């Protein structure tokens, strides 16, 4: 965003999370890949900056390999960044260790994508939800009450009946609510939800999304919602950050992005979303064929090899994010 980001953290406590020039580079391949002239580094996140205000819901949108999940994991310190800074509530999370880390974990939680994988099939729901309470040293006698409250929060009817059940006895929608309850049981301030409904059937998705919106509003949560589906992001988030090959292409109010995308990549992304309307345009997408290759991104703008508006400057110069109206766009057209 702008170089003053770090200062704004201390001045404005309205910002909960502040990311500046964050990088996550993975070493891949090795000597043999290097010999064949292949890159041995994948830049999953490469110089990303943004602030999230308290109570804001931000969608991280992009295709697979764009770095959205890596970014989410960096924010929760599930992955150590290879560069830049990430402040949570004014504190740089890179240095947090020991009891500080434990405290951070209770404040910042992840809602997993696949409820069938995220819960131990051999644990009852009671045990699944007791674990975080044990970790936080909540006295035993308080635990059951907290569990019931959390299950009520995610609108599982008659929560007591679920306590002694095992995951396979629950439907996908019920299980995803349990995953949500586990993330919320320690009353975090910040949650990262990684495609939380992608494994669920269409008819039950809406229920889980509505619970997510409701819980967020009631607890005043700050939320990141990671998805490849703009329609879902639009339903949950007032702001959207569009990523491509580890970088931010566009960042702004979701409605503005849906109605008038500015970045050429966002334009293609919005046009590609199928809508339940037989009159939808079948025009070819304004984007080149092919798939982004994170190991060999193009020089300059990472999107230029698929961009219909690419020109000479795009190859030589990385476009920096610029404010355009309500948004920030990283493109030489603006």
């Amino acid at each position, binding site marked *: 965003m702008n170089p003053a980001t770090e200062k704004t953290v201390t001045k404005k406590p309205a910002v909960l999370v502040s990311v500046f020039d964050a990088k996550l580079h993975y070493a891949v391949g090795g000597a043999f890949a290097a010999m064949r002239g292949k890159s041995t580094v994948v830049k999953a996140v490469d110089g990303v900056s943004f602030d999230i205000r308290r109570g804001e819901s931000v969608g991280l949108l992009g295709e697979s390999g764009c770095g959205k999940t890596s970014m989410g994991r960096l924010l929760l310190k599930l992955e150590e960044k290879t560069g830049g800074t990430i402040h949570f509530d004014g504190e740089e999370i890179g240095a947090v260790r020991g009891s500080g880390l434990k405290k951070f974990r209770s404040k910042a939680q992840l809602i997993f994508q696949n409820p069938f994988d995220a819960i131990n099939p051999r644990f009852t729901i009671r045990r699944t939800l007791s674990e975080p309470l044990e970790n936080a040293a909540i006295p035993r006698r308080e635990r059951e009450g907290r569990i019931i409250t959390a299950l009520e929060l995610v609108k599982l009817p008659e929560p007591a009946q679920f306590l002694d059940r095992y995951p396979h006895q629950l439907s996908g929608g019920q299980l995803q609510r349990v995953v949500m309850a586990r993330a919320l049981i320690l009353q975090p301030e910040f949650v990262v939800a990684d495609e939380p409904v992608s494994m669920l*059937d269409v*008819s*039950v998705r809406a229920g889980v999304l*509505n619970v997510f919106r409701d819980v967020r509003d009631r607890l005043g949560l700050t939320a990141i919602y990671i998805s490849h589906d703009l329609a879902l992001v639009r339903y949950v988030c007032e702001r959207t950050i569009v990523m491509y090959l580890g970088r931010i292409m566009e960042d702004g109010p979701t409605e503005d992005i849906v109605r008038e995308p500015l970045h050429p990549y966002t334009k293609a992304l919005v046009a590609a979303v199928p809508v*339940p309307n037989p009159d939808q345009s079948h025009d070819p997408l304004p984007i080149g064929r092919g*798939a982004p290759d994170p190991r060999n991104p193009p020089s300059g703008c990472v999107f230029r090899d698929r961009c219909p508006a690419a020109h000479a400057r795009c190859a030589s110069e990385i476009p920096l994010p610029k404010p355009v109206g309500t948004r920030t766009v990283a493109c030489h057209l603006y």
Partner: protein
Amino acid sequence: MSEPLLSVRDPLLSVRDLRVSYQVGRNFVHAVDGASFDIPRGSITGLVGESGCGKTTIARALTRVIAENAAITGGQILFDGKDLAKIPEKEMNALRWRDIAFIPQSAMNSLDPVYTVEYQLDEVLRRRGGLNRKQSRARSEELFEMVGIDANRLNDYPHQFSGGMRQRVAIALALALDPKLIIADEPVTALDVIVQRQILDQLKELQTRLGVSVILVTHDISVVAYICDRTVVMYAGKVAESGTMQAALTAPSHPYTMGLRNAFPDLQGAASGILTPIEGAPPNLASPPAGCRFKPRCPFALDICGTEPPVIEVAPDHPVLCHRAHESAALRIESAKTETWMAPA
């Protein structure tokens, strides 16, 4: 190839009262329990439903490539004057690839990782199609051009292709012997939205150009709305309703289809729109509810719904499996309200 003709007269494929069951221990699960629908020539039909509704089982039953513990226990699959449910395996095998091609879920699994894609095309073209080596090479190049892949990639192995490219290869394979019917099981589900759209456009273009019929099996109604002419909506092993895409979108007549319309976000819809889930979950097919299978989740259920629902034609070419199908216009209005779905009867 016959000309595109959108009418159920002279259908390419007619499924009548099809039943497919799985044996699980001592129990039988009737995954497809009396499904009937027609596939017109030169059309794309979306076979839609949630997981476990029986859509993949139907798709596989049409080619008789079903699991070992499964069997077609009743009904007819009429294709070109033959009943595919009854013809001997040898005769069925002769139809595969030549007349009916199958694109399985996730092209990653349908391609053999240890052979080049040319080898795999060659196998179909020479062994099944009776082409010689030279003809096979020429046809392979032609097929690659059709699906938009450079012919010099024929000698590559599947892992050297991206997910979208592999799906194009799978489409090329399906088209190899100019079949009359292609069954594609979730062909774009694992793909990103941009690649998904490009593959769908390609599939539609080829389907129109070649006049082939396609059955697209998917859970994604938006995908169906985007490229299909017709749709068959399944719920818990039965066809809830079928007909033209236009009818399904503008006049959904089964409460399940009506409910689905409220349940997923529409990028063209109002920003303030609230999504309404269908409460509950699909029934366990080992012990389905008596009567209408949607009854436990249906806001319009009456006592009569405890009995087997009839198939009612609400309009020509629009059969609906519902006791209250004749009231569908009124129910549609009710179904658009969120309150309707809050407390199912």
